[in-house]
C-alpha cells in the first residue's frame, strides 16, 4: 500500500512533472465517500484551534507515522520518483486528532476532509556500518558494507478542510 502522490509543485521545481507513484495494484485509490456518509469534523476543527493543534497518522508502505505540522519524517528508503524539493501529497491517513477529539478510520479517511502535504527535504544516507554474515562450513565471516538511503520529509501542510 503506497498511496502517496508525488507532485512537482510549481513552487519548488516547475520543470518536472512527476507521475503518480502508485505501486499498489490491488488496492484501488480511496473512492470519494458519498455525502451521506461524510463525517462532520467541525468539533475537531474548532478544538484544533484552526488546525494549529492537530495531529495525523498517515501510512506509507503500510507503516504508520504520527505527525504534526513542521515535523520531519525519516523514511528508511529512497522514495521512488522523488527528488529534493518535491511536494508529496499524503493521502492515506487513518487518524486525525486534536487535543480532545479523534477521528479514526482504519480503511482511510476521505481525502476531501483534510490536507496533508510534505516536501522532500533531503535524500541522504545512514552512517556507514558493516554487516557480518557467516556461511555454513566456511570459517570466514563475510563483511558487507551498508550505507542505506534515507529520505527526509518535512510536513508542511496539515489542516482540515
Amino acid at each position, binding site marked *: 500500500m503506497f498511496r502517496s502522490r508525488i507532485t512537482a509543485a510549481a513552487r519548488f521545481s516547475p520543470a518536472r512533472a512527476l507521475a503518480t507513484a502508485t505501486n499498489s495494484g490491488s488496492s484501488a485509490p480511496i473512492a470519494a465517500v458519498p455525502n451521506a456518509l461524510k463525517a462532520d469534523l467541525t468539533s475537531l476543527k474548532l478544538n484544533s484551534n484552526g488546525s494549529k493543534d492537530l495531529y495525523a497518522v498517515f501510512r506509507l508502505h503500510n507503516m504508520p507515522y504520527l505527525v504534526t505540522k513542521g515535523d520531519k519524517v525519516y523514511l528508511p528508503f529512497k522514495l521512488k520518483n522523488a527528488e529534493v524539493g518535491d511536494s508529496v501529497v499524503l493521502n492515506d491517513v487513518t487518524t486525525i486528532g486534536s487535543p480532545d477529539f479523534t477521528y479514526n478510520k482504519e480503511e482511510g479517511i476521505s481525502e476531501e476532509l483534510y490536507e496533508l502535504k510534505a516536501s522532500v*527535504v533531503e*535524500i541522504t544516507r545512514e552512517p556507514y556500518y558493516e554487516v557480518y554474515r557467516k556461511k555454513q562450513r566456511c570459517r570466514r565471516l563475510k563483511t558487507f558494507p551498508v550505507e542505506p538511503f534515507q529520505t527526509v520529509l518535512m510536513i508542511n501542510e496539515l489542516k482540515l478542510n
Partner: protein
Amino acid sequence: MPVKAIAKSSIARNGVGAYVVPCHKISVQYCNWGGSSTGLRELLKNGQLDNIASKKKGIFFDIFKRTGHPKLTFHYNNDKAQEVEVANLNAKEIEQKIQEYSQRSGAPLFKHNHKVLSINDSIRGIWSPMHTPKSHRHQI
C-alpha cells in the same frame, strides 16, 4: 514592567513554506592530462554536465582545471563542504555522485532511531497519574 521578554531566535524549518536547496555550490576539479580524470573529462566534453547544471538551476557549478586526481566539492549552506574523490570513475558514476550529494543537507549522516523528529509540543500532552480520581489510582 510586569513581564520581560527573553530573547529567542526563531527556528528555521526549511520545507515549511519555502524550500531552499541546501547545496548551493559544486566545485568540479579536473585534470587535463591525468588518466583518472577521463570520466570527468568525458562528462564535461559531451555536455552532460551542462544538462545536469540546467536541471539544477539553484546550484552554482564552479569548474576548474588543476593537476591531480579529480574531485567534487559540495558546498552546503551550513558552511560545510564535502569533498568527494571521483578518480577513475566513469561519467555515469560521477553523475550519480553529483545527484546524491547535491540532495544532502550537509549535516553529518545520522540514523534517527524514531520515524518522526518533532520540535512541536505533543498535541495530547503528557499522561499524568495525578489526574485520575483517587479511587482509580494504582495502590502500592
